[in-house]
């Protein structure tokens, strides 16, 4: 990954992406997943992606516009963690099954491990590092501390990012609804009841999220 500092990126789309975006991304990924094996590894010859050139990518991360040159194989998660040093976003499974890697893309919660970085052209990415307002924690971060909504803390950034979306999407109207709409975020320490309380507290407190 190389970065070209100080250059202006393409402006990102301002409209809110809808659920179709996720479907499109998923289908694109599924296409890659189901690419026939011989195409990926033809008769001992080097597969086509092995020698890939870096591809330019412009996007906004936590309000800062970045122009990067990336390996087209990089997921958004690996771009954040391995190349930009934004390790607050966690890798739990790398298969889109645990939610630890949840970030916001154009305001929607997205599994960054299932999103290729090159698909984020012009998009606005928000990670846990960008959630608080300087030293002022986001209300959900405060609430997670108050209700002890974690133990080891590894799933926590993903839980918090998902919780923000859960409230914004209007899916935090009852404990049962929160449980349903947060079920993509696994917690092996078992902090679920505390997380639900933390979200409910912010929702009923009426704070802006």
């Amino acid at each position, binding site marked *: 990954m190389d970065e070209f500092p100080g250059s202006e990126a393409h402006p990102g789309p301002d409209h809110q992406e809808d659920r179709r975006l996720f479907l499109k991304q998923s289908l694109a990924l599924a296409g890659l997943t189901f690419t026939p094996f011989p195409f990926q590894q033809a008769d001992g010859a080097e*597969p086509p992606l092995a020698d890939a050139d870096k591809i330019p990518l412009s996007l906004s991360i936590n309000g800062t516009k970045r122009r990067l040159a990336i390996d087209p194989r990089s997921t958004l998660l690996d771009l954040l963690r391995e190349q930009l040093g934004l390790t607050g976003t966690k890798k739990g499974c790398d298969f889109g*099954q*645990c939610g*630890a890697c949840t970030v916001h893309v154009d305001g929607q919660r997205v599994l960054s491990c299932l999103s290729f970085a090159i698909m984020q052209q012009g998009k606005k990415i928000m990670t846990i590092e960008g959630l608080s307002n300087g030293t002022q924690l986001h209300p959900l971060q405060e609430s997670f501390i108050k209700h002890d909504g974690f133990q080891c*803390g590894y799933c926590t950034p993903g839980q918090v990012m998902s919780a923000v979306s859960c409230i914004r999407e209007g899916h935090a109207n009852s404990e049962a609804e929160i449980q349903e709409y947060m*079920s993509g975020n696994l917690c*092996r*320490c078992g902090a679920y009841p505390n997380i639900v309380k933390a979200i409910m507290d912010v929702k009923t407190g009426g704070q802006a999220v």
Partner: protein
Amino acid sequence: MSNANLPEPSLDRVDGRLKVTGTATYSAEYQFKNLAHAVLVTSKIAKGRITGLDSKLAEAAPGVLAVISHLNSPGVPGYPSVKQPAERAPIGTAFRVFYDDFVYFSGQPVAVVVAQTLEQARHAASLVQVNYQTEKHETDFEANLAKAAVAQSVQRNKTSPFQDYDRGNPDAIKTAEVKLESTYVFPTQHHQPLEPHAIIAVWEADDKLTIYDKNQGVKSAQGNLASTFKLPRENVQVNSPFIGGAFGSGIRVWPHTIAAVLAAKKVKRPVKLVLGRELMQTSVGSRPFTVQKLAIGASKDGLLTAITHEGIGQTSTYEEHLERTILATRAMYACPNVSTRYRLLNLDVNTPTWMRGPGDATGMFALESALDEMAHELKIDPLEFRIRNHADRDPERNLPWSAKSLKECYRIGADQFGWNKRTLEPRSMERNGLLVGYGMASSLYGFHRHPSKAKAIMLADGSVVVQSATMDIGPGTGTAMTQIAAKMLGVTPQKIRFDLGDSSLPDAPGQNGSATITSVGSAVHVACESLKKKLLALAAAMPGSPLANSRFEDITAKTGRIFPIANPSAGISYSEILKYHRLPQVEVTEESKPGPERDQYSMYSFGCHFVEVQVNPLTFEVRVTRVVTCADVGKIINYKTARSQSIGGIVGGIGMALMEESVMDHRFGRYVNTDFAGYHIPVHADIPQIEVYYVDQPDVYVNPIGSKGLGEIAIVGVAAAVANAVFHATGKRVRQLPITVDKLV
């Protein structure tokens, strides 16, 4: 009784802010220039030999720095040289990485690829071609049951607790008035912490190694690596301040750690290796597949007369993993005639390891299910049956308990749960067309305390640093230790910093066996007490000191000020003491260790769980709708974090009861459900609100702080409570976990 559900003025986690902002740094997240990435190549067969390993394509791939296998390993100085001709490792040999061409289990590391970037390493790893000579493997536990035998290590050790045990008359079971005999099957389960195991290995010099590693004991990891690589202990530095869960998977140093250290040696750069989720099942141990045969005898009026408990656990062909499976049965109930047997079965799998409540969670599933079955047979309420057979002394060691409030736990739990609303007959309760069942189980876990050291430092500004090489895999070690120090020193928690997870700090045990609060908490307590005494002496030496001639018993401290109890206004602040003596800091290091009390008392944590399930009578979908748990773990240090730990144990127990099973395809000797889509753990929607209660009375015999372990007891017994509730709801007894729909229809 103390209700952990009520708002308590508990200290919030001291590292909470770091965790919710994503700034807590876990093992794979340290930044290095020149960092290289490693990806493992693992065996595709379960038993055989590697006949060829072609790495040419991989080595030629862009960015690749090295491909390391047994053919070109830089070598591990602590391994013996390979015998000629090579032979399989005998039982009792820790797995040796890239050592020879033998394959012991599917998923064994056979090579590691190191490249400039993760993407390059991952791709190149797919290009390594390994050829094998396959041998017939045995991975099917039940098919090989007849081969189970007494462990070799037990045969050599006549005082091993796993020797055959008989109390009273071993034949009493044959003449019991009422007798039940059942077999309970516990599948292989995996820890699956959300953070995959990860390491960054850095050779600072030829004889100096630093690792940033996910483990549960920096000191034991340091010692292991020092002997494996033949380095002076002080030349190995292990940094592990944040661990994203482990539950036992981080107690040992595993092959991938050695592979990363070897890789860093080979490429002379820092190397990062993160296990993919798919490798977590074959790289860091498991709860072993275990079959238990339990026979239980009772009189018609509900007194236990005999129990025989045989446990057979799975292990690898190269190591013997023993765990407490049958031991709880000897101590749990007042039963005059008890026999236990423990056997191992060596299979072509990776070695199992300790997983939360090791052995006890497995054994208590069988024992507490059997108690429920007997209560049903005798038409006695299951809770009443347990109370009738309560052990007032430890029947195994014939010693008094150091403290035991199990009956109080039963009372609190039953009251809060509403156990008296339970009807005796199975399938007799309904709600909204769904079957309802109430189940309960007891819980126990042995008390463990190990020698531990802590350093306490008073700084010139009155702030305090406390240090110990202990760990926090999630329970909130730093928070509890800060509270213990704050209470002893009379300093607000905000002025205290607690350092852990660093092998250069004073000696402490790893975080396992529910021993951290009991061991390290005691060390912090005595270190802070000693520091306070030292500061009192310094204060007494000041001219005109109001503390001159004060005895330690006569003084106290609050908000950083030390003063006579009789005259609170005549105090001196810690910062004034250091200022007068012109000291930048005052420090002490103290050790705390167990004494002869272990021979005078039998020490356990006790508790119980009450579970309500709803079962759909058509689909047999089981949902846990309510849980009440109560524990007697001595003095509670922090209600908020203790409650979270109890809840976490319940959640793990619900997973154990209803979902978790690592399924192996025995044609290939390979696990097939190697991700969270296949290996199910509870999600938000599976878990109801959980009520937690503690007796909260100090156990005055165990240690200076009166606290016992909580981590394991939180999960022990939960699976049985769920199974018993399912039986009560449906009338169907499931003795093979997990309780899935196919076993109920």
